[in-house]
């Protein structure tokens, strides 16, 4: 598979999926985010890196947190940013995805940040944009959410030193989760010792182990001695289509409670990509407890997105200027 995310010189051009990216690049993203995160603690939070660049947030699916952090990240880099909620605009008038895209491109956009309900949508858009345009995947269907995965890795790195020594458990709806797929790929690329997924068979992909994970159906077994616990959001519509009987039964079997948390290592951290369903996948006492790093994840989201945006648009200037550094 050709990796169209990278320029010929191996720099980031698009950021569509973790798959196919090498460890040094993921480390570079985190290192760069580390620099930016000191900026966001300053009084003046802006740097002029992307001054004059135009970034479009193309959200074909609703989102608050992800869109806001992308917007903040762009603004802190001094870019001009536009938010477009396409679900309520063009496509409802029957315009095709490509037509929408080409129209926006005609407005001299430098970067699209795309969220779409269909797996592969970001890849599709990246294949069709002009060469000078970068695409960042802000979540496509059940496929990938690479900036979320990177902010999670960043958060883990802040708390745990050495990835190969870690045992990470992801609990919940892996089947429909773009976050989980990207996390699994990032964790594998960073060399994490063991990745576990925990959930009922209805919420795990068939051939799940081919993703490079150990599969557990019993949360007690799965949580034993882990360093990091990631709980996933359970969409309400999963009760439809006979995937689960009820939210109550799900919480009983797979909800992260204080009691279950005891099974993990004493210094284990608890993560969640948000938004949280309290009492469904996680108990409030755990979400708000001392081991939870959930709000930190949100904060780190800005730095990670600044890192990815500046790297991708940096490669664009490299493309524009030819071989001169």
């Amino acid at each position, binding site marked *: *598979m050709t990796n169209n995310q990278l320029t010929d010189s191996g720099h980031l051009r698009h950021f569509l999926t973790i*798959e196919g990216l090498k460890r040094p690049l993921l480390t570079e993203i985190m290192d760069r985010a580390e620099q930016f995160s000191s900026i966001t603690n300053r009084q003046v939070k802006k740097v002029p890196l992307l001054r004059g660049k135009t970034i479009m947030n193309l959200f074909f699916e609703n989102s608050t947190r992800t869109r806001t952090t992308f917007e903040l990240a762009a603004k802190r880099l001094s870019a001009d940013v536009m938010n477009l909620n396409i679900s309520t605009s063009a496509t409802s008038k029957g315009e*095709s*995805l*490509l037509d929408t895209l080409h129209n926006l491109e005609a407005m001299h956009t430098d970067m699209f940040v795309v969220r*779409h309900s*269909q*797996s*592969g*949508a970001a*890849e*599709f858009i990246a294949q069709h944009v002009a060469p000078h345009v970068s695409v960042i995947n802000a979540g*496509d*269907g*059940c*496929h*990938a959410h690479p900036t979320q995965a990177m902010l999670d890795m960043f958060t883990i790195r802040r708390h745990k030193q050495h990835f190969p020594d870690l045992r990470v458990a992801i609990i919940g709806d892996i089947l*429909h989760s*773009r976050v989980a*797929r990207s996390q699994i790929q990032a964790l594998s690329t960073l060399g994490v010792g063991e990745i576990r997924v925990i959930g009922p068979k209805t919420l795990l*992909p*068939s*051939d*799940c182990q*081919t*993703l490079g994970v150990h599969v557990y159906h019993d949360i007690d077994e799965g949580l034993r001695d882990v360093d990091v616990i990631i709980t996933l959001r359970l969409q309400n519509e999963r009760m439809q*289509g006979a995937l689960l009987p009820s939210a109550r039964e799900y919480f009983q079997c797979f909800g992260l409670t204080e009691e279950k948390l005891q099974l993990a290592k004493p210094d284990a951290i608890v993560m969640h990509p948000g938004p949280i369903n309290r009492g469904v996948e996680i108990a409030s006492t755990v979400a708000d407890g001392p081991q939870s790093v959930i709000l930190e994840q949100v904060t780190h989201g800005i730095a990670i997105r600044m890192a990815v945006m500046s790297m991708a648009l940096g490669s664009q200037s490299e493309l524009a200027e030819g071989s001169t550094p």
Partner: protein
Amino acid sequence: MKLQISNGRVIDPASTLDSHLDIFIDDGKIVAISENHEGFVADQTIDATGLIVCPGLVDLCARLREPGQEHTATIDSETRAAVKGGITSLCVPPNTAPIIDSPAVVELIEDRAKKAGRTMVYTIGALTQKLEGELLSEMMALKEAGCIGISNGLSPIKNSLVLRRAMEYAATLDFTLFINAADPWLQSQGCIHEGTVSARLGLGGIPEAAETIAVSRDLLLIEQTGVRAHFHNLSTAKAVDMIQDAQRRGLSVTADVSAHHLHLSEHDIGNYDSLSHVIPPLRSTRDRDQLQQGLRDGVIGAICSNHQPLDNDAKQGPFAQTKPGISGLETLLPLTMKLVDDGEISLKQAIANLTCNPAEILNIDAGHLSVGSAADICIINPNAHNECQPQHFISAGKNSPFAGWLFNHEVSHTLFNGKLVYQK
């Protein structure tokens, strides 16, 4: 008009003929297959030195999009593509618009095909009215109008009682039932094979059981009703086993496979390549290998194009929102012959899978070379070394995942009723 095809290697699996002979054609019919024919003075001679001369191909499943979707393709455009692919007989499934559930639609298609005049077009009538799976169609009327078989197309019949009655009625009329086996519920959530690739790409999967449950139910009802049945487009290894078992038990059951399922697997979807979006989905490499084995064992008798021409827009978009289908008429022969080059099947078998076997399934007088029968002939250049270029397809559908594939075989001439309808 007298025509002579000289010096070709004549291969006719129906009569186990394979030797260098001339074919003499007069008034659309073959009058002799021999070294020479006393007193025959040809108006035209085709020099087939170095070429293979075989019966015109018989394709069990090709959608021509007319009537109903003429903006996508027409009987005229697609029969042109068919003869470029060496095909002189083909079957259209009933899901046109209007659906082939009345004699008027049969007549319309046959008229247009006659006007095009390049290839025989056989219609398969709708098993149930509007393909809704509830009320039986007027099968007798459809049979009298010329339908060669009966089918519910890509709309599986959910109600087993209706299916049983439909089979009984078709059996009464000695009508062959064509089946696309799919469990509607297991199929509905997915767009690719449920397996490693669907897990990686986050696309909805269609499990193997979507096919095997349907094949299993249908076989039990076929056994009970005694209907003659043909399964279109098998995709799983298990379904091949089940059909083999049924054949061993003496059931009147045959099967075909599309040329693309013999070459591609789920992995060819790569990074959401919508050109490989097809239903039934491309499955695991093991399934693909077992489909080839099914051919060798004779469980699968025929290879079909499962031609589904689509316009470009239909393949533009996120994978699940693109339309499934491959434009297959022009790759049917080269893909089948590639199996010969790859050592999977013999040349004789390859030609049989495209000619006499499907003709036998349809019970039509085609797919063989014999004195007195219509001169439907395909002449093949076995040393073509062509790169597949879908943008140059004659078919209105350029939707093929085989761009860039190298093919050794190409059709050099196609004769239909003794008339040269295609020449490279």
